[in-house]
């Protein structure tokens, strides 16, 4: 325990690391602001923001047919006169919300009609999915394809009972769930801190000295691994928290906290059914796990380098390889290549956001489940290798403690 605290202080609780964290946090917040300004018209257009606030009161909360009818009564005539472009383009028209027909149409479409349609259709779509999956299950059972039958049974189980009953503002969550910049920031900090774990000792010849002490050798490596684990989990979680608070500050997140995750458009085929807030927490933890697995690989590389430059470059190279593979296969149907890639565990919306299975000995396993297991295995293997390959001292352990 003492060794662990000492390594933690020596490697990670240092001024440059904290300075980098502070600067990157500020950069992250600035980027969040820029992303929100870029994507949300409520941030840049005062009229839109005011009108949306006013209208939101009419439609938020439980979805009822009355609300839908009221919304369509407002929207249909606008759609009618703007579709054939006969409406005036003047921007001071009486009786409109924003002063302009086209602007009204776009606003209603973007912030009310299309989310309302999505929420409302959710139940019917899910019921269709369940029905199709049950039919397929019966067909495959008849044809004797047991894996396909099980897979369809799993789909039916996942999708049964899905429905969105409330209308909420979800734009903030859409931006939050697709925001990746902080992952790069976390990666750079981890690379910087981890690449010197072993190289620092080597640079000042501490490694030879340590081999001659009871606390050296594998027990000091173990302490390093434990300290690195704490650090690699803490940094991504810190950035995930900053992201949540940052987006919460510039856009309203709390409204949609309780909606199910599949209410968000990009997650409509999600294989999980928790609330958006709960999903964000799970996603952040999974991201931290992905970083931990990569971090252990960085550590293993760091053991081989005389100076910190090689581990840094090699670590960046490993991440780039994972990124290239993620870009190549992230969208494809190669579920295994997706799940085995730490990059996809870090940027994990395509694992959670799709209902895809991997065939493990005839049992359908969801990609995100397989990915979590594989990441954990990768991290543990790298850590075990680092421990095994690291310097051994032949002084009996436990003397000092």
């Amino acid at each position, binding site marked *: 325990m003492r060794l662990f605290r000492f390594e933690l202080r020596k490697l990670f609780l240092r001024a440059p690391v904290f300075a980098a964290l502070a600067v990157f946090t500020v950069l992250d917040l600035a980027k969040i602001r820029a992303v929100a300004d870029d994507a949300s018209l409520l941030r840049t257009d005062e009229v839109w923001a005011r009108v949306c606030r006013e209208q939101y009161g009419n439609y938020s909360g439980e979805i009822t047919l009355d609300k839908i009818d009221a919304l369509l009564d407002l929207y249909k005539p606008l759609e009618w006169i703007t579709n054939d472009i006969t409406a005036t383009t003047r921007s001071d028209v009486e009786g409109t919300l924003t002063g302009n027909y086209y602007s009204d149409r776009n606003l209603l479409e973007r912030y009310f009609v299309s989310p309302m349609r999505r929420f409302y259709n959710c139940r019917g779509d899910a019921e269709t999915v369940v029905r199709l999956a049950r039919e397929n299950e019966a067909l495959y059972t008849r044809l004797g394809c047991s894996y396909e039958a099980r897979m369809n049974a799993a789909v039916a189980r996942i999708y049964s009972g899905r429905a969105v009953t409330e209308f909420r503002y979800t734009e903030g969550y859409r931006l939050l769930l697709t925001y990746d910049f902080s992952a790069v920031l976390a990666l750079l900090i981890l690379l910087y801190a981890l690449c010197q774990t072993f190289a620092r000792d080597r640079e000042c010849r501490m490694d030879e000295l340590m081999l001659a002490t009871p606390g050296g050798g594998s027990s000091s490596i173990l302490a390093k691994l434990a300290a690195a684990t704490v650090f690699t989990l803490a940094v991504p979680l810190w950035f995930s928290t900053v992201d949540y608070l940052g987006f919460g500050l510039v856009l309203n997140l709390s409204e949609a906290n309780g909606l199910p995750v599949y209410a968000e458009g990009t997650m409509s085929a999600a294989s999980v059914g928790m609330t958006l807030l709960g999903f964000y927490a799970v996603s952040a933890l999974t991201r931290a796990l992905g970083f931990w697995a990569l971090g252990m690989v960085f550590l293993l590389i760091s053991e081989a380098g005389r100076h910190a430059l090689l581990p840094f470059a090699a670590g960046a*190279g490993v991440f*780039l390889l994972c990124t290239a593979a993620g870009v190549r296969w992230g969208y494809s149907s190669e579920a295994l290549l997706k799940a085995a890639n730490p990059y996809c565990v870090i940027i994990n919306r395509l694992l959670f956001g799709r209902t895809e299975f991997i065939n493990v000995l005839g049992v359908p396993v969801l990609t995100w489940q397989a990915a979590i297991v594989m990441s954990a295995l990768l991290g543990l293997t790298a850590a075990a290798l680092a421990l095994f390959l690291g310097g051994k001292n032949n002084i009996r352990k436990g003397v000092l403690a």
Partner: protein
Amino acid sequence: MTLLHFEIRKMLRTNRGAVIAALFLAAELLLCALTDFPANSDAELYREQYLHYLEQVDGAWTREKADYLEREAARGADERYAEGLDVIYEQYRYVNEGRENRFFLDANGWASLLRDRALDLPLAAAIILLSVPVYCGEAASGMESLVLTSRNGRRLFLLQKTALTLAATAALSLSTDLIRLAFCAAKYGLPHSDYPMQSVEAFGGAEKALTLAGAEALAATLRLLGALELAAVTLCISAYCRRFALAAFLSSAVAVLPWIGLGQKTQYALPLPSSLMMPVGFLRGSEYAADAASGGTVTVFREATAAQTAAVSLGAALVIAVCLLLLRRRYGGAIGGGRGALPKAAALGLALCLLLGGCGDAEPPEDVIYNSRDSAAYEYGGLTVTSENGRPVVRDGDGNVTALPLDPLAPVDGAVYIEPFFARGRYVYFRREFSESVGWSLADDSGKTYVASLLRVDLDTFKTEVVFETVTQPRSSE
């Protein structure tokens, strides 16, 4: 051996500069080979037919050429040149929009050469790996303090080290250009370098009056400036930080973060190494998109004017000058020998697989027996496949009806199945398309990703598998 020889040997051997450079060149070549694709694939596919027409109209727009093409299009080409006529007519329509500076030209080579690429990561990595050990190596080995007391450990060493690093950087940057030039010339040919750059479709909206050769020369110059700026900043950082890890971390942040973090609009207004190393952005014309709030258009990208480009270049030169002055201040002109660091350049090889292009090599069926557009039904082993509402439907002798594909998730995941579908032997083939409105990239997540798949259903078991797939990423996500 003179001191300069020692310095060169240290850079190339002790610091593994030669290995880094070799890996860098290999990475650049591989990147070219793996990621290059023809801008106009039809012109490449029907090259002979296309060239047949191009020969007649090559060069600037004239009334005769326009009449000739209109006549040919109205007449309908003979069988042999039909595809070529389509290609040249497309080009004619493009040229017609800006007759004074859009020329008829086989533009694929130039389009590839001047393509808007992502940040050249192998180049950035090579520069950082070469520059970081120059001063960090001296500090790490403790040679720094020793050299300060020696006779030649003054200005001469600072000068030699810095000049050598900058020269190596310049060589790397210029070799990138040479590799790309050679690659595009060999693959497509680079004809008529004196035509205006607007002849290439990507620059159709640009205001600048540059020839194709001039555009490439400007791009190369800007890239060189950006590379030198990155090297100078890295040298300066490493001289002040003295630690490998911190120097590598900070210079990577300088190289990469502005590229990922800043939008297109701001990037090209600032003298950043990353924006200068992606010089095509300084050549492109303005781009517009529809504005949801007003129904009008908004500027997505504003063309960098000549003055802006000059100001950015000047800014970069200023940054280089400040870095050099800071270096001088740091050492007072004193730095010398020492063993230096050992950057295991093998690491750079990992960056080489940065972009894996291409796609699977599964073959689509050769001789399709059934095409849902041409024939009404397909029979296989007692099963009848027909097309109903654009979907294949299978009926067996017992009256069981199964609509294909057996994809329960179609209502929620936005998959679109496209007619016609095909059948051959016991397989039915479909096309499926996905489009994801949110980019998969770490950079600007705008635009859409398209996934097109060819699926195959086995009529014996109704198992579905993907036999071929392509993923198209939005431009910014490379």
